[in-house]
């Protein structure tokens, strides 16, 4: 998690006046984490960039409309990103598992990479089959490493509901993966 922003409330107060340094600080603080989050869920660099761009654009539009968050900016931004991804899933038909080139490991063993990519894509496909709230809880909990309270703020539900969602999501995921013979 990225906790470099000292005070969300102060930053947001300046951001509402479209203060350039404050907005730049917000972008620099949250953009990398949001990109990683989008990449883990979308597995597509262009789409992840688009997700980040659209998230921050919606944030600016909310500020212009005198809406947007009063605090907990991180939770707000991840909620925006999650909504964009869910909408994207709805727009795009369920894709078949596609092996993608791993730009990071150019010298790695292709067979190992292929196997790993296949597994990653199957897991993503399995996550996509969960409900939107379950997807968000699983992603934030196990991929982003958030605490339940932070997840609760992001999905705007009590911490108890997050725990419940988490259990159900894990159970569903295991069933799906077992059916896919991934586990």
């Amino acid at each position: 998690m990225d906790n470099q922003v000292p005070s969300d409330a102060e930053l947001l107060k300046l951001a509402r006046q479209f203060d350039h340094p404050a907005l730049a600080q917000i972008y620099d603080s949250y953009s990398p984490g949001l990109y990683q989050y989008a990449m883990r869920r979308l597995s597509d660099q262009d789409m992840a960039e688009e997700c980040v761009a659209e998230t921050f654009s919606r944030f600016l539009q909310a500020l212009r409309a005198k809406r947007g968050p009063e605090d907990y900016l991180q939770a707000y931004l991840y909620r925006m990103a999650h909504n964009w991804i869910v909408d994207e899933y709805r727009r795009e038909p369920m894709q078949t598992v596609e092996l993608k080139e791993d730009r990071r490991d150019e010298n790695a063993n292709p067979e190992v990479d292929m196997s790993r990519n296949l597994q990653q894509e199957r897991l993503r496909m399995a996550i996509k089959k969960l409900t939107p709230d379950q997807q968000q809880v699983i992603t934030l909990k196990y991929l982003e490493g958030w605490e339940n309270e932070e997840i609760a703020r992001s999905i705007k539900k009590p911490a108890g509901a997050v725990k419940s969602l988490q259990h159900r999501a894990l159970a569903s995921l295991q069933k799906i993966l077992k059916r896919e013979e991934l586990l």
Partner: protein
Amino acid sequence: MKKDEMDSRLKNAFNELQNIPLRDPQAAARGRANFLKQAAVFRQSASREADRRQNRWSDTIFPLFQRKGRLPVLKFLIAIVLAVVVLFAMANATVYAAQNSQPGQALYPVKTWSEDVILSLTGSPQMRLNHALDFSDRRVTEMADMLAAGKPIPEGVESRLQNELDLALELIAGMDDSQAIQQLEQVRQRAEVQYQTTTMLMSGATESAEPLLLKTHACLQEQIRLATMGETDLPGFRRQIRQRSQNKGGSGEQIPGTGNNPQGPGPMRPTDVPGPSGTGNGRGSMSPTDKPAPSGNGNEPGQGGNQPSGTPGHNGPGSQTPDRTPQPGGGSGHGP
């Protein structure tokens, strides 16, 4: 497969997803630039909107509160408002204090002025009538207070009383029949009380005060006579009131049913007022040429009726009140 084993394999799968390719720095820079560019556009838009809002106010009052250079203007305006408020409060206090003043005192003109203002600002005839009667009560009370203090009664008090009584009758003459009869009764009763008061005042009055009291007495007698007549002969009452108004030269109140009909009653001389002896014409209309009947009970009417210079009758023994004329069915009058 056991649950724990499955969980660990699931965790491994999640761990695999942790590994993602590094972000393209150029794409990240482009994203940042686009974001800040969009923010700049929004900032300019918000600034223009704020300017428009400010311009709307700038032509009016807002700059007075904003700009340092215009602070004296604001102070000047505040001073004027405060001065107006203070003056208004002082005027109110003066008028309030003047209500207890007596004729001859410094605040007495304020009292009478405030009464005139009230009468002129009151639109409802009923309310004006109530005010006029209240003010006439005040005049009688003022006379009593002046006499009790051994001071002479200024001429203006009596003339104001007469004007107020005249106004009351003119207002009644302008009302519709049922309301007029109801109000005439009220006016008669109040005039009778005032008459009794002045009668008592006359018994202890100094010689110098007597002429004025006699004048007041006659005025009240006339008031009672007209009110009594109006209760039984409303058209005749209206004719007389209209005639009085014409004789005074004032326009008077609008009196319905007594328009300038050439067929109507002719002009009535002040001496045509019937006497208060109760031996008048009884029920029915009174001719302007009717002469007052001689009084048989000691109440000699003033010659000239409502003529201020007329000599009011003196009360005979056994009677302190004027007779009501005309009395339905004739006969001697009744005390109030």
